[in-house]
């Protein structure tokens, strides 16, 4: 797979490691009433879809940036690559 890095351009996927579902950007509020339940779901439960999947990749052998890939788990086709920072901010995170 080739990952089209938003800053560096096309790079071999072997330079990256995959952390998993990009839902991990949305860390629950630890003060919430049901924080226990929320953190269980956050830490352990996954949609694991067959098809489009948003996921976190880390450019470990490169610029060490975190990316959000939109990738098809049936074909491995990557349709979108964003900086994880930008995705987090667009979801309301301050950093």
């Amino acid at each position, binding site marked *: *797979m080739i990952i089209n890095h938003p800053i560096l351009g096309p790079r*071999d*996927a*072997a330079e990256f*490691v*995959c*952390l*998993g*579902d990009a839902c991990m950007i949305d860390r629950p509020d630890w003060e919430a009433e049901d924080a*226990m339940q929320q953190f*269980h*779901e956050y*830490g*352990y*439960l*996954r*949609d*694991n*879809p*067959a098809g489009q*999947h948003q*996921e976190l990749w880390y450019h470990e052998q490169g610029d060490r940036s975190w990316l959000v890939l939109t*990738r098809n*788990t*049936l*074909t*491995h086709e990557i349709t979108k690559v964003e900086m994880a920072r930008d995705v987090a901010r667009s979801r309301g995170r301050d950093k």
Partner: protein
Amino acid sequence: MARDATETRDFGGSVKMRYSAFKIFMQGLTGNKSWKPVWREPDPKPEYDIIIIGAGGHGLSTAYYLAKEFGMRNIAVLEKGWLGSGNIGRNTTIIRSNYLLPGNQPFYEMSMKLWENLEQDTNYNSMVSQRSILNLIHTDGQRDAFVRRGNAMFLSGADAELVDAKQLRDELPFLNFDDARFPIKGGLFQRRGGTARHDAVAWGYARGADSRGVDIIQNCEVTGFDIQGGVCRGVETSRGPIRARKVAMCVAGSSGRVAALAGMRLPIESHVLQAFVSEGLKPTLPGVITFGAGHFYVSQSDKGGLVFGGDIDGYNTYAQRGNLPVVEDVAEGGMAIMPMIGRARLLRSWGGVMDMSMDGTPFIDKTHIEGLYFNGGWCYGGFKATPASGYCYAHLLAKDEPHPNAAQMRLDRFMTGNLIDEKGQGNQPNLH
């Protein structure tokens, strides 16, 4: 059901023969003309006591033990494709019980004991070969860890044998003992470990289940669940709705997809594991060799090919094929530990979808929906577990309580804190 010496009754009306050397001899003399199909192809009935989703190794062994050990008869096994078309047909056939943790090791040793009697039990040649499995040791720390593992194996009734480098040099002179990064300092053998013929395992269980009245329905995809008021009353399929008192998921790599039909999210990600076979060679490897530090393991099939593999690719996929970086990594691992493998040509490679769980350990449990059961999360270790998985799942389905050896394999263990994390990697499935 009583089995006489030569025949078992076939619920489809024909007579099923019991295999023996004498039968093969007689068939050979008569042109092999009277072999019969070994399972029926029934149409689905409107209702069953138990529906098992997935006619893979685990689903078929579940049906087999439900019928044989727990006296259940009115069972259907539904299969999207053809039976044995999933991971039971795509694995590297290793059987072993060399785990560490109490939630795992007694279960895998139970499986090993079932393997040891499988062919007699099913009257089917599964080619179980206890040719040994070896884990290589490269450091003092690793030796300490393997001593502990060996003792854990003894506690469950399994065998273990710690050997030093000198003995290994005598037994396996072709290994690269003096590698600068990973010099071989010894190893932990399980001599009862080995390999089995993966397809024949599925076929043997299918034949055994079918002859006891289980309907194995192929080309029948489950498309939904009939869940009313928190109770599962059956399934929707590509061949119409089928009612059941209990529905048992057993779909390995497709766990996420099927569970989603019931509105469930699982502590599982689907990943691809690649495997490789070389051209056929004369007998070269006496047993299974695992080079854990280099993510490489290898054995030799009875046909002569070197069967080997390594790590999962590391990203979510349902594609049943991987990418080239892992091919290179596995080849490097092989060359590092067993340089002679470079003289063999690679014949083919393939990928299978692994249901990687959050702690590397499987689940055999009820779900929060009454009448719906789940078996999955086998990671890349499902083949060796086939007999015990089926037996323990059958126990759960028949008695509604877990088998003692699978009692810790619960779906809620991440909420209760009772993880079974053999590698201590935490909740990242691609590291297990």
